[in-house]
């Protein structure tokens, strides 16, 4: 019960933090000057009183953030969408699951790895195209963010197409339409909402990417007037300036995070509206018209585009993995993995230990709270009329799981590290990341519990077995596969996070941590520190390889568990 309110309290405190932390600064700068000011040129010695030496306008940051998210949407949305259509409707039934499985695996790769790939491979390639030879900027960022959201868009498009009523297709076929035509002109428009939802989810994610943006955007405060012009995004700006920020500067950074928060909330709000809207709107709106006049007309061409997109998806995503592993392998020596630190960057023993400590404590903090929330929501409330409180908690959980890591990180570094006095440390990192892991575990546990047949509950209650015992001794054991998947998912998410970890743990590469109050880097942030900050490219590749291997094995493990469970339960039924 108390646990359930956790998310509500967290989301409220983040909001309070963002508003109160930035209020004074924005008042000093002037609200209009802050939002519409054309230049960001901070000065750490600016305080809340006295003359301001720097300038704090975030309009170029907002525009750049938007431009790269839209760019990502165009790249990732188009490729992901057509890949999804291909997998659901054109690919043979035999191969489709394998490709989907592969794409799901690739979705689990941490975004920092995509970012590093972009920095090492995409930037040099783009510099051939760029008139100035400078390749950082909107295009590079859009491409990489786009690739990052391809798996999400693909999966959601595919599943919404697979849920289309079969009679719709039969109807179209009976009218003598070809397969291509039936798919593109009839079926796809009917899943408009599903696709829209997928795209919005992708945008939400692209808006918040932080360290990727630092690595690829170029980081000069500009309007994105050309595809190759160096830009700086809101999250990137926070990451670049949080260290050693002055009083006014910090307030302005928090203010920019508030703007980002609002943008993300708007996107997720739209996502929820689109996802839950019951009314079918077909053939309305400019998108539908555009669709009817382009893709739906040229179905042959669209089919070709689908095939090509799928090819690109598979090729690019797997080459990310292959290139990183190839470049990383030569550096995976003994000194690198277990060597003692001697001032250089030739060993990642410390990040390995730090990562283990961090995953352990974060799990210990967040799993119990997440699981209790889920139990409260599924077993103790939904049976009664869905009350306002339940709805409130669920909204809080949804919002919390959508907030970009950069915002939570900023909250963590100010509240846990500074105000509570923990300092930037592994502990502060664990507490901060827990805020994001809790909603995830709670959602996943809810799913797992919902999959337990209702008849078990009925049976147990009819025997006069109390609620607590039914939940813990009957429902939980039945939900074990779901719960294991939840654990694996959550650990994967912990390993992937970079921005919040970077801020709260200090992002230093040093000797082995001596305890939870030491500073440190996880494997994710080590990639950034090694590859971007110190130009130890080979070592960064090697770290990325380790991370990929861990994440992919976790993913395979969870698939394995699920398949095994499914098979055994099927056997028993037969």
């Amino acid at each position, binding site marked *: 019960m108390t646990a359930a309110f956790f998310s509500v309290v967290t989301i409220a405190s983040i909001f309070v933090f963002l508003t109160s932390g930035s209020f004074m600064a924005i008042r000093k700068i002037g609200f209009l000057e802050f939002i519409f000011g054309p230049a960001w040129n901070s000065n750490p010695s600016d305080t809340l009183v006295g003359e301001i030496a720097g300038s704090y306008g975030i309009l170029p940051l907002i525009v750049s953030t938007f431009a790269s998210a839209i760019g990502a949407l165009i790249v990732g949305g188009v490729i992901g969408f057509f890949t999804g259509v291909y997998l659901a409707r054109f690919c043979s039934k035999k191969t489709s699951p394998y490709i989907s499985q592969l794409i799901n695996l690739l979705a689990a790769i941490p975004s920092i790895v995509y970012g590093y790939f972009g920095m090492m491979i995409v930037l040099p390639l783009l510099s051939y195209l760029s008139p100035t030879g400078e390749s950082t900027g909107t295009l590079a960022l859009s491409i990489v963010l786009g690739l990052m959201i391809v798996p999400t868009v693909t999966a959601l498009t595919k599943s919404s197409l697979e849920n289309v009523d079969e009679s719709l297709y039969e109807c179209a076929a009976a009218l003598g339409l070809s397969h291509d035509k039936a798919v593109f002109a009839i079926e796809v428009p009917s899943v408009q909402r599903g696709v829209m939802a997928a795209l919005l989810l992708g945008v939400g994610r692209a808006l918040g990417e932080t360290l990727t943006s630092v690595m690829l955007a170029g980081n000069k405060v500009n309007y994105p007037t050309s595809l190759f012009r160096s830009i700086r995004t809101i999250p990137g700006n926070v990451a670049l300036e949080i260290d050693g920020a002055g009083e006014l500067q910090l307030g302005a950074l928090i203010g920019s995070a508030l703007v980002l928060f609002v943008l993300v909330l708007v996107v997720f709000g739209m996502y929820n509206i689109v996802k839950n809207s019951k009314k079918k709107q077909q053939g309305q709106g400019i998108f539908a018209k555009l669709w009817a006049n382009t893709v739906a007309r040229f179905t042959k061409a669209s089919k070709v585009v689908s095939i090509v997109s799928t090819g690109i998806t598979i090729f690019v995503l797997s080459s990310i993995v292959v290139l990183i592993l190839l470049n990383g392998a030569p550096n995976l020596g003994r000194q690198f993995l277990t060597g003692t630190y001697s001032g250089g960057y030739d060993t990642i023993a410390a990040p390995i230990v730090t990562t283990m400590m961090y995953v352990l404590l974060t799990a210990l903090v967040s799993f119990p709270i997440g699981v209790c929330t889920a139990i409260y929501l599924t077993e103790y409330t*939904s*049976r*009664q*009329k*869905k009350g306002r409180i339940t709805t409130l908690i669920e909204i809080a959980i949804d919002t919390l799981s959508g907030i970009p890591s950069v915002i939570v990180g900023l909250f963590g570094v100010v509240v846990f590290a500074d105000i509570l006095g923990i300092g930037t440390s592994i502990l502060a990192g664990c507490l901060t990341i827990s805020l994001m892991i809790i909603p995830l575990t709670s959602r996943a546990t809810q799913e797992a519990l919902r999959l337990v*047949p209702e*008849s*078990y*509950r*009925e*049976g*147990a*209650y*009819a*025997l*006069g*077995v*109390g609620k607590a*015992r039914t939940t813990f*001794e*009957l429902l939980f*054991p*039945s939900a074990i596969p779901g719960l294991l998947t939840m654990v694996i998912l959550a650990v994967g998410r912990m390993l992937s996070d970079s921005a919040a970890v970077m801020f709260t743990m200090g992002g230093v590469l040093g000797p082995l941590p001596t305890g939870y109050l030491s500073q440190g880097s996880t494997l994710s942030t080590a990639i950034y520190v090694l590859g971007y900050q110190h130009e130890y490219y080979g070592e960064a590749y090697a770290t990325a390889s380790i991370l990929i291997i861990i994440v992919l094995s976790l993913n395979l493990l969870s698939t394995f568990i699920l398949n095994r469970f499914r098979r055994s339960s099927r056997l*028993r*039924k037969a």
Partner: protein
Amino acid sequence: MANRTIIKVEGLNLFYEELQALSNVNLDIAEKEITAFIGPSGCGKTTFLKCINRMNDLVPGCVIEGKISINDVDIYGNINVDMLRRTVGMVFQKPNVFPMSVYDNIAFAPRGHGTRKKADLDALVIDSLTRAGLFQEVKDRLHKPADELSRGQQQRLCIARALAIGPEIILMDEPTSALDPISAEIIEGLCRELKENYTVLLVTHNMQQAARVSDKTAFFLLGQCLEFGETSQVFSHPQNEEFQKYISGKF
């Protein structure tokens, strides 16, 4: 000889949100008899049964008016619902064994109710399985998963499970409708044996079954109890017009 009344239902009304599923039901159910409940689908038989062990509490938006007392205790008064459900066991239409061994299926509830000693549990499991006529068939696989049993065996396991908590009343909601004729017959026979010690409320769609096994029969239509009496009387001299139509298959 008239048996003592064990369940007394007075002026029972039940609403699911707007829908009235039971209206003004009044019944006296006698101890150690089988009372059959028949009527067309959707007439409220399951709903009525679930009032007696308060399983309807779990349904959101369900409102109950009127009074039900068991052994002169108002069950919607201030009582412990878990205790009530131990007095009133229930068997569902579809066998719903728990995903554990045969043994644990039966021992699960008693363990929670305080029987912890292995010897006691063993005795209880054997006793319940014997009463449910299942012991001979499963004695060698007590520790095998229960969902490996046949459907009919699973249903009898559910009955054994209900018996193990020591109820006085057993509610059976179409216990044979998901089963083959042979298993159904076994369970019918079982009902007859059970009434030596228990009061049985049996919902069935099968009029022959009601006529064969029950002592009393109640006929429900659109949430009302239109006919209630000795089974032999009710079937040979039906009073209610609708009921006459129903038993002559004109429905």
